């Protein structure tokens, strides 16, 4: 009995042991990687690439405008869009949790629609369709207002779901404790539940900020004045003027200048939250 079991667990096999196989597999992966790098280095026309993407004088000419104008506008669009999205998202999240059925349905429909549509479509809708459909209506703030609205409409759908999840993640006992102290449901929500929910959802909200930062490039399709250009539009305009791709590279680096630190912040917050759970 004992003998047969042993045989089943450790069948004698010819060829490589498990450890040898593992070592071989790892070796093959390294070889493939090194081969790919060498192939790229040999095949690429470095002179041409440098000429196309890294012309120092073109890059130099972009400063300081790429920061003081383009990056500034990108940040402005993102932050206003985020603010609109947060306010609207909070409203929709509370509607989603409402005891009044129609509010819940309305919030659900909103979320489904605006999560399902491409952001670009929303931009075109706000920029083109709304002015045509309602002649005479003026969105406050011109382009800035339009962008804040378009980004906000898209962001609100995602943020509403995040905020709802955050509110539901606060233990039930917190609401009970607040109610037993005499808080009304609304006051308990504002003073006790929402502050705790926001601590829970700070990492996903920051991620949403990063996404919006990139989506702000869709302003490209709204038709903006020279002063309203953000990174993508600015980079593209300069690229076509100079017939060179260096401006695209510089604009891209400017995005990373913001998104990478934000990503690091999110990871640190998540690590901290993990710590708090333990």
């Amino acid at each position: 009995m004992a003998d047969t079991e042993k045989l089943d667990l450790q069948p004698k096999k010819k060829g490589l042991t498990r450890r040898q196989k593992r070592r071989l597999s790892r070796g093959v992966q390294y070889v493939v990687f090194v081969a790919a790098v060498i192939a790229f280095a040999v095949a690429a026309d470095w002179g041409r690439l440098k000429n196309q993407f890294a012309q120092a004088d073109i890059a130099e000419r972009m400063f300081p405008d790429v920061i003081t104008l383009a990056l500034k506008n990108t940040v402005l669009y993102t932050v206003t869009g985020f603010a609109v999205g947060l306010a609207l998202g909070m409203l929709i999240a509370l509607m989603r949790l409402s005891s009044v059925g129609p509010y819940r349905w309305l919030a659900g429909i909103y979320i489904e629609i605006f999560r399902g549509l491409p952001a670009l479509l929303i931009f075109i809708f706000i920029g083109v369709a709304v002015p045509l459909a309602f002649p005479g209506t003026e969105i406050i703030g011109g382009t800035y207002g339009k962008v804040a609205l378009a980004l906000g409409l898209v962001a609100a759908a995602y943020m509403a779901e995040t905020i709802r999840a955050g509110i539901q993640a606060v233990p039930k006992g917190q609401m009970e404790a607040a109610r037993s102290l005499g808080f009304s449901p609304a006051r308990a929500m504002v003073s006790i539940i929402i502050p705790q929910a926001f601590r829970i959802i700070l990492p996903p909200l920051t991620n949403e900020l990063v996404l919006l930062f990139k989506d702000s490039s869709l302003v490209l399709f709204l038709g903006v004045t020279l002063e309203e250009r953000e990174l993508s539009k600015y980079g593209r305009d300069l690229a076509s003027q100079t017939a060179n791709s260096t401006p695209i590279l510089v604009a891209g680096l400017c995005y990373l200048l913001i998104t990478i630190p934000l990503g690091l912040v999110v990871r640190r917050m998540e690590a901290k939250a993990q710590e708090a759970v333990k």
Partner: protein
Amino acid sequence: MSPSRSEIHVSGLHKSFGDNHVLRGIDLEIGQGEVVCVIGPSGSGKSTLLRCVNLLEEPTKGQVFVGGTELTDPDVDIDAVRRRIGMVFQQFNLFPHLTVTENLTLPQRRVLRRGKSEAAKVAAENLRRVGLAEKADAYPSSLSGGQQQRVAIARALAMGPEVMLFDEPTSALDPELVGDVLAVMRMLADEGMTMMVVTHEMTFAREVADRVVFMDGGVVVEDGTPAQVIGDPRHDRTRHFLSRLLDPAMANVEEETSDQVGKSE
């Protein structure tokens, strides 16, 4: 209707969760300054009864009066009534995003609309009463369970309640921390606070309570002085429960009866 001396008055109280009939007709009277301990096996409905007294659970049938106000009246301002009823939970339920002092001052300011300095004064006073003045600026997560529960008691007291409800206040504590919380509760009892305490602490019930109520299966089985109910129980169910509680190591293995299965408090 209710006599002026009665602080809590429950009559004909029923509560069901779906098909689960947890309370099956409870009548209970607690006088001013009286300390009543409610004991009974888990699933007997004692926590549900306590939660019905401040309407955290909506009774299915029956009436609840606190301080002469009917809570079960659909037009009652429940938030106003709850200000007069302090509640202490098994899991403390402190607000983790606030310091100890803020836990005490925020409800005073938001609910009672007290000024900043008055709220701070009341908070400090009540923290001193529960022996935690030096933890004023700490966050709840840095406190032991016993300390958290004492802060929770102080938070309830800061609202100036006329009645205090305790829902198994020591059940989530490490055994060596239970004493500190019971000491605070004993102090309150000595000061004349009206208290309704759901507990498994028989020593506390025997020594501090004016009355002990034994519940089982959603009804009050026995109601009397500690000496009667704990010292000389008349019902088999009470005797059986007490023998298991006081001497758990000597209990026999029993068949589960169907009405004990799947019940929760």
